[in-house]
């Protein structure tokens, strides 16, 4: 068990190093540089050279890479070229939006998907199953940003219940902050919930055919108890797997949804940094996302161990 953990952590670190190099090289290959974006259409070549020197962009690639990496190890993510402030602080501000958003979306999608999936599985091929199937397929088919636009039209423009976008900041109050995140979280959660519902349904159907569920019924448990206490927990492995895989889509979706709802989150920061060629911010954000995906996958593996004790003894 410990040996597995150590091996996994070592490979995690190596993966991150390789990813960091890839990110750096890809960012450098992008056409355009931050200095010329900042100076616009009127600047002379001398002015451009002066600014590049001030930003440290005149250094060769390996020097810049090592300086960045050394900084990351020390916890210094560098200074944003466009904003002129430390990237770490910039990312922390943005995480205070994206993290609650992602958590809300995960909670919503799991909260929707498991009851729906179980309900569909229990009334397999019945009207309820087909109805849930239809709704979940629609959820899968429509992109999150479009759901977001519809939600804005319905709840902000027409009903006026919710802000149309933007984020008042947590200093405007917890309630105001959470309120601004509800619609975007729904937009993010619905497509996820669609996928998870399908997976949960299939998994529960499969488990319900197993001997131990029959035994549970045979010993006199009610159908509900048999399903919720025996079938559902054993059907969780594929659901958690899917949740881990969907996490990547959640991040990608956050970039779009944050743009639609005008939320100052990490996804929007990445998008802005890309268009401004704020390379250092791009590198840090992408590295963070990569680390997040790798760590989440690692945690999913750990979750298997928690859910399925048989895996704990396997090498």
């Amino acid at each position, binding site marked *: 068990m410990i040996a597995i953990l150590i091996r996994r952590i070592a490979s995690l670190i190596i993966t991150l190093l390789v990813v960091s190099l890839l990110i750096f090289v890809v960012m450098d290959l992008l056409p355009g540089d931050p200095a010329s974006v900042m*100076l616009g259409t*009127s600047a002379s070549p001398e002015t451009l050279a*002066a600014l590049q020197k001030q930003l440290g962009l005149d250094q060769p690639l390996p020097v810049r890479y090592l300086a960045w990496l050394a900084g990351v190890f020390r916890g210094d993510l560098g200074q944003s070229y466009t*904003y002129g402030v430390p990237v770490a602080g910039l990312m922390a501000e943005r995480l205070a939006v994206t993290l609650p958003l992602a958590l809300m979306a995960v909670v919503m999608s799991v909260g929707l998907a498991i009851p729906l999936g179980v309900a569909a599985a229990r009334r397999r091929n019945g009207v309820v199953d087909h109805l849930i199937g239809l709704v979940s397929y629609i959820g899968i088919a429509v992109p999150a940003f479009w759901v977001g636009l519809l939600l804005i039209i319905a709840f902000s423009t027409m009903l006026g219940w919710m802000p149309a976008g933007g984020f008042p900041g947590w200093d405007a109050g917890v309630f105001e902050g959470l309120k601004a995140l509800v619609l975007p979280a729904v937009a993010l959660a619905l497509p996820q919930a669609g996928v998870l519902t399908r997976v949960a349904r299939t998994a529960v159907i499969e488990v319900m055919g197993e001997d131990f569920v029959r035994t549970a019924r045979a010993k006199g448990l009610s159908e509900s108890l048999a399903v919720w206490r025996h079938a559902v927990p054993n059907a969780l492995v594929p659901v958690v797997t899917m949740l881990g895989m969907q996490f990547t889509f959640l991040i990608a979706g956050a970039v779009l949804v944050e*743009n639609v709802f005008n939320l100052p989150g990490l996804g929007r920061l990445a998008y802005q940094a890309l268009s401004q060629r704020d390379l250092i911010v791009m590198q840090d954000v992408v590295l963070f996302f990569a680390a997040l995906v790798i760590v989440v996958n690692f945690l999913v593996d750990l979750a298997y161990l928690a859910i399925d004790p048989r895996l704990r003894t396997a090498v």
Partner: protein
Amino acid sequence: MRSTGILGALSRRMLIGGAVVLGMAASFSTNALAAPKTGAVIGMAVEPGGLDPTIGAQVMIGQVTWQNIFEGLTTIDKAGKVQPQLAESWTISPDGLTYTFKLRQGVTFHNGVAFDSSVAKFTIDRARGADSANPQKRYFASIASVETPDPATLILTLSRPTGSLLYWLGWPASVMVEPKSAADNKVTPVGTGPFKFVNWAKGSKVDLAKNPDYWNKAVSVKLDTASFRFIGDPQAQAAALKAGDVDAFPEFGAPELVKSFEGDKKLSTVIGNTELKVVAGMNNTRKPFSDKKVRQALMMAVDRATVVEGAWSGYGTPIGSHYTPNDRGYKDLTGTWPYDAAKAKALLAEAGYPNGFSFTMKAPQMAYAQRSSQILQAMFAEIGVTMNIETTEFPAKWVADVLKAADYDMTIVAHAEPMDIDIYARDPYYFNYKNPAFNDLLAKVEATSDAAEQDKLYGEAQTILANDVPALFLFVMPKLGIWDAKLKGLWENEPIPSNVLTEVHWEE
């Protein structure tokens, strides 16, 4: 039972997740909302990168800070005219080489530092120095020396007459900054203007508050607070306006949505002019665009009214040269090469291309550029010219490929800088247009400080461009202003990219 344990663990994890959200939220203090009607929320499509107009070229920097936080020796009023500001008055020597400014006394920066001639000298030397990153450094190139005989006097000695100097000193890139705070202006701008910088929630908004010690007692600033909120998506902009989250969008992003505001009594739609000239630049040294007749033929193949209709829902004014109706000495030259496909085809044959030719348009991703390109493509097809559209990411890739490398056939972009007809005299510049007669005219504009003479020369310069067609001159972008009907005092036109809040107020 193990299985319940797992469910329990799962819900525990959810609980922890919820607790994290609440804990994070609770750790921020709560603030009372500002009293209504003495504050205004202004919407902008793009957030500026940095808030120092003296080191960044983006028009958004000026749109937040110019005249609100920062002021210059001179300023530019809503009619586009030069007015005194931190310089009370000035005299120009007869040879046009010495400018003596009398500086305003009793002006302080937001951090308490007094404005005087040493500050003005610092600002100008910083902008023209060797390691200056000022985007308009060229405007200071003719300044040979800066003297400060006393705190209220500033003398600029020029190496050559510069007729546009006073105008350029009014630009966002020329605003006064003081030595102590200059390095941090990018993040925490400190100026002399009617509003102080309060906070920048990056990615979201910039907050300003009224400067109680503002020097100019002749104006009464009505707003106590002002926020610039950044909303990129046009649908989201419209939703924010309709929901009242934003009081004004002075430059609304989607002309096709403007009609949807009609009939909304709460909002008023105000359509003005900008300085954004949409032109399809051609590589004047690359065949076949090196042939003037080809460029003229392409210009005749274009029906500007259709371009304006298709690209910007009919809002926008056609132009015949690189000049807008806002600009001094404007001439309407749209009739120089009026739309006539048959004549265009004949001229193309005369130039040696009876069967047309094909080329690539590098079009930025912005809606106006993409839509204009598609319309141009159809119009060129009518005279047998095939245009392939290659979308080129703006600004980064466009700046690298088109502006710096001039590796393109044709491109399309809106030039934002006011009175920038001189770009056709720059060498190198991406048009690769070279006409000594045109360069001479612009040199003459700088050599004189007689306004009437300058206007006449600008007229001649416009005529040369209209004839030579170094770029297809299409239209001026409108300023699609949509704001709360009770909000008054915003500028209708935009002779210089800005959102001047000095006179903004709420009607009772």
